[in-house]
């Protein structure tokens, strides 16, 4: 054992493809399940939320306009990078969530598999959720799913990686862009995911990751007029009603999870994909 001093890390936010400090200059200490210091994380402010939404809106055109095939490739590449950082994720999940190393390993593997699973969905969504509608007229009518827009996500508070992937991947797979508030006390896996995303082919601004106090930031995200949908999975239970009310001001799509955090190890279905899609129906006159 050397008496080398460990380098205490101070992480930053992930915003528009860059890693800025919080506009407020604040940081907070991240501790493991036993209360030992792990690292400093940036404590985002409402202005960081604003900047993140601007970045997400800017990225929306390019990401939603990319072909589904291309999005799938990009997301699959992210899974490759996750695999490369497997050891780091295992260590961080173990430190954040406690429990045995074996459990952390299983969680990380499940998270990578989950990412691949959603990456595969990108070019299948339209086939499964779209339709050629039978209509009583000389029209060809078809419905296609389109991404909702900028989605604000409160990531699950306890499942720091598997839960995170399970809420983020379905949002961006269909072409939305995301502003994600990490788990307040367990942000490290999310921060590492942001490093993965920054070195992957995901364009800057498609995913924006903010660390900080969820209860402080969520109301600004919920009320922001340029956010189109809201995933309240990790929002504090007693604030959900208020957040829904704030979101109603600009008629956002809201996914509120009441009760306990879902069991993320269960194989998901397409419901989270479907939640952040709009259906466009086109009537086209049939030729003579």
């Amino acid at each position, binding site marked *: 054992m050397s008496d080398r001093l460990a380098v205490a890390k101070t992480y930053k936010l992930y915003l528009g493809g860059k890693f800025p400090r919080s506009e407020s200059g604040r940081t907070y200490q991240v501790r493991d399940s036993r209360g030992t210091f792990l690292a400093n994380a940036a404590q985002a402010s409402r202005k960081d939320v604003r900047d993140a939404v601007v970045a997400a809106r800017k990225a929306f055109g390019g990401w939603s306009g990319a072909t589904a095939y291309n999005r799938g490739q990009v997301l699959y590449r992210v899974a490759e990078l996750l695999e490369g950082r497997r050891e780091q994720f295992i260590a961080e999940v173990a430190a954040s969530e406690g429990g045995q190393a074996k459990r952390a390993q299983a969680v990380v593997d499940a998270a990578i598999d989950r990412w691949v699973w959603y990456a595969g969905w990108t070019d299948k969504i339209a086939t499964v959720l779209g339709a050629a509608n039978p209509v009583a007229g000389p029209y060809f009518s078809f419905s296609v799913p389109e991404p909702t827009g900028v989605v604000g996500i409160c990531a699950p508070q306890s499942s720091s990686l598997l839960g995170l992937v399970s809420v983020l991947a379905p949002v961006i797979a269909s072409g939305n862009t995301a502003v994600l508030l990490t788990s307040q006390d367990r942000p490290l896996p999310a921060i590492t995911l942001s490093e993965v995303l920054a070195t992957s082919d995901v364009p800057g601004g498609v995913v924006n990751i903010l660390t900080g106090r969820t209860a402080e930031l969520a109301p600004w995200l919920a009320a*922001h*007029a*340029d956010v189109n949908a809201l995933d309240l999975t990790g929002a504090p239970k007693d604030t959900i009603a208020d957040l829904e009310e704030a979101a109603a*001001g*600009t008629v956002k799509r809201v996914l509120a999870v009441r009760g306990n955090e879902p069991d993320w190890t269960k194989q998901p279905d397409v419901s989270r994909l479907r939640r952040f899609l709009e259906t466009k129906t086109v009537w086209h006159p049939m030729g003579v």
Partner: protein
Amino acid sequence: MAVDTTTGSSTGLPPELHDATRDETSLRRFLHGLPGVDQVGVEQRAAGLATRSIKKASKLWAIDTAISMVDLTTLEGADTAGKVKSLCAKAKRPDPERPDVPQVAAVCVYPDMVATAAEALRGTGINIASVATAFPSGRSSLRIKIADTEFAIEQGATEVDMVIDRGAFLSGRYGQVFDEIRTIKQACGDTHLKVILETGELATYDNVRRASWLALLAGGDFIKTSTGKVSPAATLPVTHVMLQAVHDWHAQTGQLRGVKPAGGIRATKDAIRYLVAVHEVAGEQWLTPDLFRFGASSLLNDLLMQRRTQLDGHYSGPDYVTVD
């Protein structure tokens, strides 16, 4: 340079300034005798003032003031009558859902679009500014520049934005630039004249100061930073130097002249920094659309969104104001 035979009293200038305009040599002596600009100092002061925090009621006041100072501009080859009309509609009612939002100061277009704008803005009190004198390069004969100006005024322009001949200025032919501005000012008559210095091409702050004084001596009502077609366009330090010039001009002559930064100002935050500079460098009486303008197109969108943010208590988005 044409010898000015008028006396000092008739131009209303104090003798030392009047002497400066007597001939090319005295003009050069005057301009080169101006104190040099401390580059580090002016940049530091601009950066220092930019850190000032403007919040709540002051911010709302600043936003409304900035809106009333906007010269809403479209200067594209692809401009159509339709685009100009919709711009005019926005100038009249920047935020149709909030009738208390002030009107902008002016709409700025190319000369051939002036008639369209004049028709759309009749009776509103909004000025119609037209660029002229072979905008943006200024590379044409004086005859054509005069004709360009006369055409704009004939079409109904109430303000003319002229460009100076940067080639002549940079090669030291100050007399030629001076005469040109003065000739255009005569062609303008009572019409407001803004002189575009195109500071992005003038290379040094000393040149900016000289060009500012040259334009003021020649009778420009406003000095304007840039055409918006050259990068860098308006910057805070350059605007500082120009504000100092109008401030000093006022101190020496008692006349009030205006400043218009144009190009590159897109965010409310930037606009407020300019207002702070106006207040601190020129003085409080310059905080009016008569003496300070923003040449901008997209700035107004951000001002409107920020205004809503201030009043509604949450961030607004481009879905709720017209964005162009």
